[in-house]
């Protein structure tokens, strides 16, 4: 469903997932020795449950919350600074990834857990790609360095989040009618 | 006037029939309490008053307009304000003034008019001092009043309230009830869902719902006089009425169609008088 034709309910759900993603900055998934925050976890659920347009809208709202001054990015209250800074590409990646995950997911009529995982995995690659791009441009570091700083440390946590999000989304699918 | 003619409503896809032929007429400026056991269709009913739900069959007209006609729905929603049970599910603004402004903004009023409406609505519910406060720092009772003010800012002719005193402590309940009373005296029609019989007793008219139908309809005195019928559907009486009924059952000559403390005192004093003789 395109965002300009979405129902009021759809908009409320997108706002809710924007808030959830933001709140995810404060929610730690206590499964690994290194605590991981729940942001991309909610991103993945939003994209699958709301679809491409509303999923992307929810992540756009999340980024706006950061600009408004809610300490929801790494970097607290400096929302706009983070967007222009080395890690800003990940945030742009959130919006585009949500759109793509939603689109891929909607291609299958009844997407199961494995299809969820597949679409979320593609989304993760998009986030890594855009994140690394800005990281290397702004921090002026080379590609292998970007991998070491901005990709590799996050892979284990992201995979766990994808698995959990895929389970949750398939359980909740059909619960929301937007 | 709000007019319901043989209204049926079925929730889809669950297929639950929540209303089964309700006919009701609510006049301008009336203060009406809607009571009945849980799941009897009270909330479903009041959501028909401002076109949030449309009847599966039957007809609802508000101020002469059929709620089924899309072009009238905006007017109807301004005419009948809806106050939900949980103010946290109704308040959309971060601050009090932002939330109260939400309705007027939707009506596309100019900024000057919106500001005027906010000041006026907050004044009417007596919380002018809260205007710039954050919603999350308010008490339950204050949030309830903000929700009412948000509806008042659209200058409705009726307000439908879904259990306005639920989860409030006695002081906050009294405060909210006083405001409701004041709005009624200003000419606003009040439709008020409640589980508190003493609260219902203070209105002009009680409609008792049961299993999606109007079970009883009359003044508080008329309704509580039919205490047998109320007991049948598991409803309780106001404590005062209950007491008088107990006295009568034990053979004392008292009236039982009484809902207010003052009237009850008169009855009991007259009893005392008789025993002195």
């Amino acid at each position, binding site marked *: 469903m395109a965002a300009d034709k979405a129902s009021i309910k759809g908009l409320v759900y997108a706002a*809710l997932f924007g808030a959830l993603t933001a709140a995810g900055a404060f929610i730690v*998934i206590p499964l690994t020795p290194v605590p991981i925050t729940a942001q991309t976890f909610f991103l993945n659920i939003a994209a699958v449950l709301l679809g491409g347009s509303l999923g992307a809208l929810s992540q756009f709202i999340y980024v706006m919350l950061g600009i408004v001054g809610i300490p929801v990015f790494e970097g607290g209250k*400096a929302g706009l*600074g983070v967007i222009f800074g080395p*890690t800003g590409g990940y945030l742009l990646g959130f919006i585009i990834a949500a759109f793509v995950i939603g689109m891929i997911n909607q291609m299958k009529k009844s997407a199961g857990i494995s299809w969820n995982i597949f679409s979320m995995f593609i989304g993760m690659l998009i986030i890594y790609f855009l994140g690394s791009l800005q990281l290397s441009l702004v*921090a002026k570091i080379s590609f292998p360095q970007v991998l070491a700083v901005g990709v590799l440390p996050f892979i284990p946590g992201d995979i766990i989040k994808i698995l959990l999000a895929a389970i*949750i989304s398939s359980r909740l699918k059909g619960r929301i009618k937007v | 006037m709000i007019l319901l003619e043989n209204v049926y409503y079925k929730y889809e896809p669950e297929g639950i029939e929540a209303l089964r032929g309700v006919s009701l007429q609510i006049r301008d400026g009336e203060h009406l309490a809607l009571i009945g056991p849980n799941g009897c269709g009270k909330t479903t009913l009041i959501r028909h008053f401002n076109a949030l739900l449309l009847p599966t069959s039957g007809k609802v007209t508000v101020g002469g307009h059929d709620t089924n006609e899309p072009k009238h729905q*905006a007017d109807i929603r301004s005419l009948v304000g809806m106050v939900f049970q949980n103010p946290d599910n109704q308040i959309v603004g971060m601050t009090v003034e932002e939330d109260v402004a939400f309705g*007027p*903004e939707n009506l596309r009023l100019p900024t000057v008019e919106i500001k005027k409406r906010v000041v006026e609505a907050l004044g009417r519910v007596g919380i002018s001092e809260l205007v710039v406060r954050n919603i999350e720092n308010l008490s339950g009772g204050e949030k309830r009043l903000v929700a009412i003010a948000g509806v008042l800012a659209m200058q409705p002719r009726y307000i439908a309230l879904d259990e306005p005193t639920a989860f409030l402590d006695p002081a906050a309940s009294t405060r909210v009830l006083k405001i409701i009373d004041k709005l009624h005296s200003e000419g606003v029609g009040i439709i008020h869902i409640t589980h508190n019989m003493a609260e219902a007793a203070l209105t002009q008219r009680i409609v008792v719902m049961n299993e999606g139908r109007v079970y009883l309809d009359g003044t508080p005195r008329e309704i509580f006089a039919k205490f047998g019928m109320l007991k049948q559907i598991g409803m309780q009486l106001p404590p005062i009425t209950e007491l008088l009924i107990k006295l009568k059952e034990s053979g004392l000559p008292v009236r039982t169609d009484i809902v207010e403390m003052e009237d009850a005192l008169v009855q009991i004093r007259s009893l005392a008088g008789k025993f002195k003789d």
Partner: protein
Amino acid sequence: MYHTGSFIKGQSLIYNLDPRIKLAATICLSVFILWVKPLTAFVIGIALFCAALANGIHLRTIGQALKPLLFFIVLIFLAHALFNEGEALVRIPRLGLSLSYTGLQQGFFVVWRFLCLIVAAILLTLTTTPSQMIAAIKHFLRPLKILHVPVDDIAVMIMLALRLMPILFTEKERIETAQKARGYNLRQSGFIMRIKAFLSLVMIVLSGVFRRADELALAMEGRNYRRQERTSLVELRLTSPDYFALTFLGIFSVIFIALNYYFS
């Protein structure tokens, strides 16, 4: 841990400026910071820190903002300092690394620019209320209406999301307490137990907030919300301090651009 917005009430020129000016200025400044020569960025940074201190923003606030990024900043700095082709000051033979002067310099300037971005953004959020920010964002998104971007709705959604965040935390805490009472605990017990506890926590929280969202959508409809253009309580109007600020910013931009050429 969490507060709605970062706004601290204060009295100074910046507090009273139109939020559109502040937002636009911060964006321009950020682009500027990334684009100019290192030494110009250095001067801009000094000016920014002075502006921040003059507006009553504590170093501690800036420190707090930097703390979660520290890991990143240090890594980026080291990446420059240790992997540079320049003449080595110190060699770490076994790892094949060398610390060079040019590397240190590069690292410093990259981190410095980042610091400037952070300070500029903090200056913005600490002097602007969330509602003012929303109004400014709405204003700048307006041209996107041509592309059918629902700008009026987006402004409402940001407000709604801000409203929902504290509710989410309350809900989460309430359910966590209930789970603990039933013997679930996220921190102890085995891996499978923890996954189960986490999944059930998320399921309960989401089902609860979904029900809320359904009610909220209905309540908004009842308050005559429709997908259309809306008017607003917040009215943005440029006043004389705003024009003064614009002039001031213009002069500074010229100075910085001149400086930038001078440093080359």
